């Protein structure tokens, strides 16, 4: 749960607006594919890996939470 909060925090920071677990690409203004890439980059730097095969499938914050693999 603590990880989820941190991930949502990172997503919010990249999008420049506060999102929740229920937010989706279609529902957030300005969330385009470029922002999705920047989210993956930011998560990468924080130690949360989204596998490359899953990036194209990201449609919502919930997707990100389910795709993230924590680096051990």
């Amino acid at each position, binding site marked *: 749960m603590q990880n989820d909060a941190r991930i949502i925090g990172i997503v919010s920071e990249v999008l420049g607006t506060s999102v929740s677990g229920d937010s989706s690409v279609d529902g957030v203004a300005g969330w385009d594919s*470029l922002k999705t*890439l920047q989210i*993956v*980059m*930011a998560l*990468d*730097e924080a130690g949360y890996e989204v596998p*490359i095969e899953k990036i194209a499938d990201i449609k919502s914050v919930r997707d990100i939470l389910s795709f993230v693999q924590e680096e051990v």
Partner: protein
Amino acid sequence: MTERIALLSNVTVESLALRVKKELGKDVFVSSGFDAWRTELLDPSSAIRGDEVKTICVLLHGPALFPDGVDFRFIDVLSGPLRILSQARAAHEEKIFVVSTLDLPASAARPLTGENFSARAAALWRDELQKMGVPVLDVAELAADAGRERFYSSKMWYFGSLPFSQQGETLLAREILRVENAVRGGRRKCLVLDLDNTLWGGVIGEDGIEGIELASVGMGSQYRDAQRVAGELAAQGILLAIASKNNLEDALRPFREHPHMLLRESDFVKIRADWNPKPDNIAAIARELNIGLDSLVFVDDNPLERGAVRAALPGVAVPEDFPSDSSALPAFMGRVARTYFTALRVGDEDRGKTEMYQAESRREVERGAHLSLDDYLASLEMKLDLHRLREDEIARAAQLTQKTNQFNLTTQRYTEADLAAMHGSPDLRVWMAALRDRFGDYGRICLVIVRLEPRGVLPPNVGHTAEVDTFLMSCRVMGRGVEDAVLSGIEEELTAEGVTTLRGRYAETTKNTPVRDFWRKMGYTPDGDSWVSHAPFMERRTRICRGS
């Protein structure tokens, strides 16, 4: 009309453009499509020809120029892009035109003795840009500083043709800002420095000239390295000034008396060392130099002083990331220099100096081609100060006996009290030696204790015997013949005292095998469990000058 910057690249830079926009607050035009940068540059109807575009930045990702890897044909690959850049520069004369260097990792399959075509290609690119007189965005240097692992992201590359990581993009955005500022002549003019804990460690008014931290090697040399950065700026025409809370005479003492101060009083155009508030002093410096407050940068370790200056003089740049650990000070000064004082080109008067230095370094290289060890040692210009132990050196002497393991023939450990007693004993001779060369001062690095045969036993015309109790030396100066010079010096002084036989011992430990053959090398012959030599003692050839 909002000003724009054009960012042209052979890879995806939309994400980088967003970050540049955030850092610069300027609109960014981006070329889209793999090779679009070429056509945008040469197309007379391109959007980048517009007056609102003041800066064109061409950022080329090296590996993307070489999709099949870098091999011996690299010149063929690079000549096309270089020709385009050369034409484009002429076509956009009125704009700021910046081109990146190439960061090209070496081929993973390169044999150890094989040629590094990647390095040659990157060097050729850099040389050609320099010949064109194009200011560079040094991607290769940024990547080297951050480490490629962190600067790039293979996931972003394979997913979106976007080579950089978030960190890489942030560094690039800042670098673009910095280069643009330098090209525009936004360079600041004057660096105002604090003294205590900035140019040296400690407080001169309290710790005194002996107590402040400042050295040419090891602890204290971080301050000297930080001073060097300021000195280099001064050599490029940046004005240096001091704003320090100190008595003036205290503040000036290190400049006049400390052997390791790199900066001299004459390097500073204004010295304000008193107890007035720093903002007042800094405002006065700007007034007297007749430059704006926005030409000043103020560096101080004390956050209170920084806050006071920032509040009172908002135009003055006050870097906030002064390191809490002094080992990070030179890197911090480097950042200050790069951020505020980057010049577009070397000035005419500096160029003369640069040429002089270049000639000097060529001489070094030529010398290096046929350099024997002996020549090398001679070139160090070593000066040895061998003297009888002084009262104020007892602590250092004890420390040397406690800490020296490798070059230590007998590994006798002595306390300060022991050494104080030895210092006063008529039967003992204790020598200390200090070494410096043209690169710096190594300090007191060698200690020798010799026990004389008790006097009065033999008539004066009969030779005396003496025994080396301790012979140790810091491993930092091994391999230079220092020990030869020290032993010869001591033999000479003992001879003058009537000693004709000198005896030495080697007591083996797990650490002191490097000196196992010391006595043999010094011309001593085995005698039971010790080594002995008689007057006249052997002459040893060294490249070391005696004298203080």
